[in-house]
Each structure stands twice: as structure tokens, then as C-alpha cells.
């Protein structure tokens, strides 16, 4: 036992020395200053926190990747990226970031309501708040950037109606219960209701998750011999649906409309795969827009920049077809 004990203590001691000694993220390095325009008035480097949900599905993994990409463009700013599994953890993350005296925060809320009070407090403490995708329930953010989820639902549903010529049997798969999902589904359902030739044979939730969508689709396939198209509303779910179709030998004369613009699906659209005639964007890169705006506002002087910065930016969603797919294909992205 004593050997193990000695080994453990040695490991701990090494770790301690390594952690205390290492250079990255040291507080003193912040005061060294780089002399450029990215340095705040008191000579310290700007410090910005990025708080995002944990990568529990492909899209959020894309958010992390794009946050990494965008922050790398601004090496003079001290970036801190934190992810959270649930709102409680995100509140803690935000408090910790405040303790580290960040100048700005780019927040993609795990959920809107719980993060609103803490965001209010951070704003009161003088921190610049950029909110992305899931907004707050009060106008707290200095800048709010979101995708147009109603357009996502409307445009995707219209595509299905047109491609089916107004007649057909479809399956609707929903995502994780949230305002994002509700907006999409409601807008899509409005379009479907206006076209009585479109018959929704099944509606269930795949939680924006490949495995879950596959299981749900398997069950649906058993009881519905005739299905023309699937409104999968997310590319992870689309891939799960595809697995179910192939396993059941039902992958002919049927097609899937996913969503968000995962690179694998965009590639399939580009290559003219009959299963994927189209896709619809909802770019996780919108976090990069937030990062870019935070950097730009701090670098150009907050007061002046905020005079003309829009308070609310709505990013349109676009239909990806074989013709334009190459514009939406990012082979290096994780998503």
C-alpha cells in the first residue's frame, strides 16, 4: 500500500507544480499588455467568457467547434470557453466567469428563464452581454443574435408540400422540448394544415438525437406501410431515420428533410442522394458571430460601438439544394 500511496502523492505534487508553474491563462500575464488596440485603458488584456451548452447533440458540438474557431481569430483577447449540462451548472459557470473579471460574455443559454436573472446581475455589474440563439425573457442582452426558427419550420414544410405536389403521407419528428423546437414545429404544422392533401401519419420526438430518432422511426415504420417523406427537423435525427429505413428495407421511394446543415448531409445533398433532396440551414456558426461581435465591440470602444450595433439580429435560414450545397459545405467542421 505504501508504494501506491507514495506514487499518488508524487503524482499530486507533480500536478501541483505543473499547475502553479504553467503559463497559459496566468493572471499576471494579463498585465503585460501587448501595446495594440486590443488593450483596455488600464493596460490589461480584455477577457471574454463564452458560455455554451454541453455537446449533447451534433449541433451543440458544432457550436463548440465554431466558438474555438472564432476565438482563435482574436489571440490578443483572453478567451474562456465553458460548457454546461444544465442551467444550474451554467449559472455557476457565469458566476465563476464574473469572479475572473470578464469584460464581456457570449452566452448561448441552456434554457431561457433560469439564465435571465443571472444575466441581469452580470449586466448590472457592467459586463457586455451578447446572447446567441436562445434569448432571455427580458431585454437584458446588449446584442441578441438568433436564427429564425419560425422560418425554419415554414420553409422546410413548404419544401415538403411542393416536392410532394400537395399530396402525401409524412412523419413529423420533434426535437428537445424548448422554444426553439416549439417555434419550428408550430410554423411547420401551420403550413401542413393549410394543405389538406398532406397527411401526418405519425408525430413523435427524437430529442435531436440519432439513436432516439432511430428507435422512434422503427416503431413508426411497423404500423405505417406507406410513408412518402419525413420532416426530421434535424440532421442527427435524419441520420437516425435513415438507419431505421435501411434496416427495414424501406429506403426506396421515400426521402428525409433534416435540418441545421451537418456537413455529412450537405455532402449527400450535393451528391444528389435521393434520400436527401435538400436540407435547411440553422448554422451553429452563429456563436462565431457572437464572438466576433464581442471582440469587435470591445476593440473599437464599447460606448461608441453600441451606439450603432443592432440590439437584435435575426439570421435567416436557407434551403440547401444540390445547386447551392457547395456554399454550405465545411469539410473541416465537426458538424
Amino acid at each position, binding site marked *: *500500500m*505504501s508504494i*501506491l*500511496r507514495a506514487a*499518488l*502523492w508524487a*503524482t*499530486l505534487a507533480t500536478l*501541483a507544480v505543473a*499547475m*502553479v508553474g504553467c503559463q*497559459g*491563462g*496566468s*493572471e499576471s500575464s494579463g498585465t503585460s499588455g501587448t501595446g495594440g488596440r486590443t488593450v483596455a485603458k488600464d493596460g490589461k488584456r480584455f477577457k471574454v467568457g463564452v458560455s455554451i451548452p*454541453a*455537446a449533447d447533440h451534433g449541433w451543440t458540438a458544432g457550436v*463548440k467547434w465554431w466558438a474555438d474557431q472564432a476565438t482563435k481569430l482574436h489571440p490578443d483577447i483572453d478567451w*474562456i*470557453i*465553458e*460548457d454546461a*449540462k*444544465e*442551467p*444550474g451548472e451554467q*449559472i*455557476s*459557470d457565469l*458566476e*465563476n*466567469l*464574473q*469572479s*475572473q*473579471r470578464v469584460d464581456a460574455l457570449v452566452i448561448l443559454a*441552456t*434554457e*431561457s*428563464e*433560469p439564465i*435571465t*436573472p443571472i444575466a441581469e*446581475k452580470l449586466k*448590472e*455589474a*457592467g459586463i457586455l452581454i451578447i446572447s446567441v440563439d436562445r434569448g432571455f*425573457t427580458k431585454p437584458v442582452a446588449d446584442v441578441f443574435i438568433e436564427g429564425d426558427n419560425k422560418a425554419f419550420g415554414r420553409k422546410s414544410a413548404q419544401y415538403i408540400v411542393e416536392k410532394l405536389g400537395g399530396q402525401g403521407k409524412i412523419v413529423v419528428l420533434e426535437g*428537445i*422540448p*424548448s*422554444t426553439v423546437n*416549439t417555434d419550428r414545429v408550430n410554423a411547420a404544422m401551420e403550413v401542413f394544415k393549410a394543405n389538406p392533401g398532406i397527411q401526418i401519419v405519425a408525430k413523435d*420526438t427524437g430529442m435531436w438525437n440519432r439513436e432516439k430518432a432511430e428507435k422512434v422511426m422503427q416503431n413508426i415504420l411497423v404500423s405505417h406501410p406507406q410513408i412518402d417523406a419525413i420532416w426530421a427537423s434535424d440532421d442527427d435525427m435524419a441520420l437516425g431515420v435513415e438507419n431505421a429505413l435501411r434496416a427495414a428495407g424501406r429506403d426506396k421511394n421515400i426521402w428525409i428533410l433534416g435540418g441545421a446543415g451537418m456537413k455529412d448531409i450537405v455532402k449527400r445533398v450535393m451528391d444528389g442522394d435521393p434520400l436527401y433532396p435538400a436540407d435547411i440551414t440553422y448554422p451553429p456558426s452563429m456563436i462565431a458571430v457572437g464572438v466576433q461581435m464581442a471582440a469587435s465591440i470591445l476593440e473599437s470602444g464599447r460606448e461608441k460601438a453600441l451606439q450603432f450595433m443592432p440590439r437584435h439580429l435575426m439570421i435567416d435560414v436557407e434551403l440547401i439544394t444540390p445547386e447551392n450545397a457547395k456554399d454550405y459545405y465545411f469539410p473541416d467542421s465537426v458538424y
Partner: protein
Amino acid sequence: MLVAFVLLFLMAAIRFPDSFLHADNLRNLLSQNAYVGIIAIGMTFVIISGGIDLSVGSLVALCGAVTVLTVNKAAESGMVLMVALAAALAAGAVAGFANGAVIAFGRVAPFVVTLAGLAGFRSIALVLGQGGEIRSTVRSFGDFGYDGLPIPGLTNIGGKPVILYWSTLAFLLVALLGGFLLNKTRYGRYVIAVGANEKAARYSGIDTRWVKVWTYTLLGGLVGLAAFFNSARMNSVGTGSVGLYYELDAIAAVVIGGTSLAGGKGRIWGTVVGVLLLTLIGMLLNLWRVDPNWQGAVRGAVILIAVLLQRTTKPEN
């Protein structure tokens, strides 16, 4: 484990004197895991008695839903907070009692019963919340979540007094009362006896079934208390996401604190330090800029090292 905590604390203090040692941050260290902490105290009793409860995370969601719905119903009355607190405690205690009753009288393994609870309680919460979040319509309920005792003489970066939240005070109070209950009362001795050797306890005249039922009921009530504070803090309850993995955090805190998963021995103060250690690790990962994708690995390693250290620094018995 106390050594590990002190070591990590000193490391943080030396490395980040400016932000880590700030009054605001030290308050955060106490308060951030107060909900898990309150639950972990109850979990200590259950584990000492030889049981386990995997349903607490889902029960947080269920009790939270009950709390916020009650708040919205009782919005007009002057006693919103008291009524909601009573509802949360009652919901938690009833669920805990049900767990305990099936375990003790139905003779089903606690792992299985509470695994069913993990699935079931979350599901009922989702039904109550129609799959999404339930928002409170009472502003004062949300304010209560950020309210507490101002600590005299300490101010934060913005120059305002540092507040010790009510939830943190509740955690410390629950820990004190839990320590008293475990070490100074007959019930506490029974819990230890049942966990150490159930047969011997039964032969010496203890009704072991009821001892078990009450540990789960106590834990359930504490889950209700945690859910009450948690939903006040968020002024809402996200029925799909709140309390996720709380059971793992609570069990981890108890085990780091030196309570044996086999039952029969354990300590409340150890659990408190375990909770603080988990929070400290979270803060350090943040301060050290560990990539979020790596944080789980580091956290797991620190937990293992903490437990191994404490195992090896004590003589074998």
C-alpha cells in the same frame, strides 16, 4: 480527502490570488453546490443504512414542478414562499416514503426501485411541465433565490455587499442537524447498526424496515428542500433538464467524504467537504482554462485520486 481539498485550495490561492481569493468567489465555493449538498446529506443516511438512491435528480425536477405550480396558484396569498416550501417538502417526502416502503416492505433492491424512480419521477415532471419549462409568475419568488444574509464588511467587485444565499445557509443548517441526528440520537445509531449488519440489528430488536423507510423519506424531504431553492434561483423549472446527474454528484460527494458504499459507517462532515471538493474542482477547471471536452476526465481523475488517497492513508482494518 480533507488533505486533497486543502491542497487544491492552496494551489488555487497561490496561482490565482486575485480572483480566487475574492470574497465573491469564496461565497460561490460555498453556494454553488448547495442543492447537491442538501441532497448529499440525506444520501449519506441512505448509504450508511446500506441503501442507495438514484432517483434524486429526477425527484428534483418533480418537486421543482410542484413548487412552481404551487407558487403560481398561491400567487395572491401573502404566504407564497411558505406554501410552496411546504408543498415541495411534502412532495419529496411522499416520493421518498414510497421508495423506502417498496424497498423495505416489498424487499426489492434499492438500486432497482430508485432506478424506476429515476425514470418515473422525471416523466411525471415532464407531464406537469408539458415537456418544457414551467415559469413562475411571481417575481418575489425569483428574487428570493438571490436573497440572503449580507456578510458584514465584505463587498464584491461592484462594491455591493456579498450575500450568503438562503440556500447556502439551509445547506449548512441541514449539515449541522444531520450530524446531530446521525451521531447523537438513537435513530442515528439504528441507521448505522442496520447498515453494518442488518440481521444483527433485527435480532437486537430494531425494526429495520422502518429505519430504512425513514432514511428514504428524510432524503426525499431534503430533495424537496433543494428543489424549492433551486427553482427559486431559476424562477422556473426546466422539467427536462433540472437535476440531471445530481444523483451522481451527490453519491460522489458522499463517497469522497469517506462514507462506505457497503454501509455501516460514514460521516456528515466528510460529505460536506466532498461537496466543497467537487465545487472546487469545477472552479479550478474553469480557472485553468481546461478545454470543456477534457473537464470530465480531469474531474474523474481527481475524484479517484481523492478516494484512493484517503483509502491508503488509513490503516487497513
